[in-house]
């Protein structure tokens, strides 16, 4: 959600941006044979230095995905974070939806990959895109599924705090203020918060929440961002920016520790404070305790991924998870079998995004 733009606009980059938001990158720009569309998250630089034009918005979007997904997508929907979802963001996003529709990129179903606030932006677009496009005589986009990486559709408590901090004097609670500054990249003022307003938990959870027929596959991190200074202010577990209740697609903003009631973010099989329910068609797929908010879309390795196993029966067959467990003895246990963990074998040797991409393209 809080990705910084890297470097300045070069002439070449500007030329690329001017060529439009849509780009073809060859055969790899598909996932399981379907075109991929990227929707990025909150760009903190847009608050301190609002983009002068849409080319800058596109350049930031391109930079955001460059490390992994950029060359694996056919199109992007870029938007400026100094706007609001039901405002400038919807307008910018729709111009790109129109182009995608006109080019027929989703005629054979697209896969949308979102990061962080892209979850919320996509939810608003999915609720309205068919009506908007049809009113112009255009074909609505056919979406196969949405892969939400660290989805912020349920908001974050950091945004709640940012709005209050914007109204408090400089002496107020230093640790809270530092956490908010790390998250937003600015000294918050009442009128410079942009999409952070939409990320307040109550605002996010009252925006375009109707049940939708498009499956949302959720990928959830649990690592630390900004040196860990934000974690104390987010309910339950989190990835340093987004709470687990949001990333999983939980129906309530109450803090939870895992997307599962019986498997921790680290894969430990034990009773967990999990969600009491999930939004319709929301499916938590993988969790990774070590992956922080940015790691889930880049090439960071070393983080074990954990399948969110909620249903041990498939096609009437009961799955024996013993084949996918390993034992790990706690430091205080002298010998014996130790606790049971579930993991995606060898997942720490690759990044979460690469694991998803290569598996789907298998």
């Amino acid at each position, binding site marked *: 959600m809080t990705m910084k733009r890297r470097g300045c606009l070069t002439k070449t980059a500007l030329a690329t941006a001017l060529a439009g938001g849509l780009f073809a990158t060859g055969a790899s720009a598909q996932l399981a044979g379907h075109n991929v569309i990227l929707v990025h998250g909150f760009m903190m630089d847009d608050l301190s230095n609002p983009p002068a034009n849409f080319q800058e918005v596109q350049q930031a979007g391109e930079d955001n995905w460059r490390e992994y997904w950029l060359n694996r997508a056919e199109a992007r929907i870029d938007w400026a974070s100094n706007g609001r979802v039901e405002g400038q963001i919807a307008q910018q996003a729709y111009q790109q939806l129109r182009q995608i529709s006109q080019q027929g990129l989703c005629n054979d179903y697209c896969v949308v990959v979102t990061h962080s606030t892209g979850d919320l932006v996509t939810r608003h677009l999915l609720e309205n895109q068919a009506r908007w496009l049809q009113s112009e005589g255009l074909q609505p986009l056919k979406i196969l599924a949405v892969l939400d990486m660290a989805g912020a559709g349920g908001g974050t408590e950091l945004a709640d705090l940012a709005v209050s901090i914007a109204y408090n004097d400089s002496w107020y609670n230093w640790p809270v203020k530092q956490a908010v500054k790390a998250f937003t990249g600015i000294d918050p003022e009442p009128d410079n918060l942009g999409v952070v307003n939409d990320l307040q938990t109550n605002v996010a959870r009252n925006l375009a929440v109707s049940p939708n*027929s498009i499956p949302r596959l959720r990928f959830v991190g649990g690592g630390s961002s900004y040196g860990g200074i934000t974690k104390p202010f987010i309910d339950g577990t989190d990835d340093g920016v987004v709470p687990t209740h949001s990333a999983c697609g939980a129906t309530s903003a109450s803090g939870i520790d895992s997307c599962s009631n019986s498997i921790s973010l680290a894969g430990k099989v034990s009773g967990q404070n999990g969600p009491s329910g999930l939004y319709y068609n929301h499916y938590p797929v993988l969790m990774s305790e070590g992956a922080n908010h940015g790691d889930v879309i880049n090439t960071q390795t070393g983080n074990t991924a954990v399948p969110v196993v909620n249903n041990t029966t498939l096609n009437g067959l009961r799955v024996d998870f013993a084949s996918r467990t390993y034992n790990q003895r706690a430091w205080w246990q002298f010998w014996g079998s130790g606790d049971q963990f579930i993991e995606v074998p060898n997942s720490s040797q690759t990044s979460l995004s690469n694991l998803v991409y290569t598996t789907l393209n298998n």
Partner: protein
Amino acid sequence: MPYRAISLTLAITAGVAGTVWLLSAENEGSFRGLLQVTNSSAPQMVSNQDTAAPATPAGPVPEPPSENALGFMLASVAEEYQQTIRYPDYSVPLTKAQAEAYQGNRYHPVVLPLEGDGRFVVTLDKFRFSQGEPILVVASLNGRQVFGQSLSATLETAGERDRVASAELENADPGYFQGAVSSDHPPGEYRLIVEARVDGKPVRHVSSLTIEPDLGSFEGLETAYVSGNDLVIPVRFDPEQSGYYALSAQLYNGETPLAQLQQETSLGSSSAVIRLKAHGSVLANRDIQGPLQLRHLQIRRLPATPGDRTDYAFGPEEGYEFSPPDLDGLRDQPAMNPESEQRAALLRQLADKF
């Protein structure tokens, strides 16, 4: 004396043995606590649907899932999604948690941490207020700080920062304050600023809410009837302005949520009837006793163009109760939604690789 030495030796030996056993990883009984055994008991289910998968029909024994854990997850998603497409978009089943979430207009208490372990919490009974209804504010303060005896609440427009209303919150109980702010102001997004004095300095708790325009009035239900495989519930709504609207409501039988119903339609400025439909897949084979209730009615005027705001209005708090017609003719048959079916087929195709 020798007996005392023997007793002491025995006690020490027993203590060491006990500690060793306690620290052993084999000591599952003491350390596992809430641990569940994966081989013998299924992890507790959290699902976004409350319908059990139908029994597998007799036939060839299916292949066991592959060892690819992510592949297994994708196959699980494909299977679960296959179950959801049985329901048309206009009539989806609800778990209790989903029923609560999709009621709409919910407000989760917002916490502002104070120094130490202090907390400044503001709670509203809803997020969206119809123009003119009072905004009831409850605030609580706790911690080791010294708090002032009164709190103020101010309503400010989110855009121009115009202060449009304010009120004093009264001390209801120790640490608890409450009061009401007027919402008789132009529709839009507002910020509620609740100010307290903490250790002699002002601390402001700020959160967002909306004031909604008068979209029209709910005028009750017409007689429900069965058409095809749907129970049709006509809702009378008298809109103030024309536009494209989405009406949603939850169908209950007593305390049991049955379905979330939704219908989108274009309305003129004259009185209209919007027909909500509950599909047979959410009603057939259910033990429905007595009258049905339509609760949490919510109508949205959807944004005509990108960038427009979505406007909201809500039905009567008590909802509507009605006697259903004979529902015996409804069948638990899957709905036909070509796009969802194609989506499910593609997901299955993807999962079949594992």
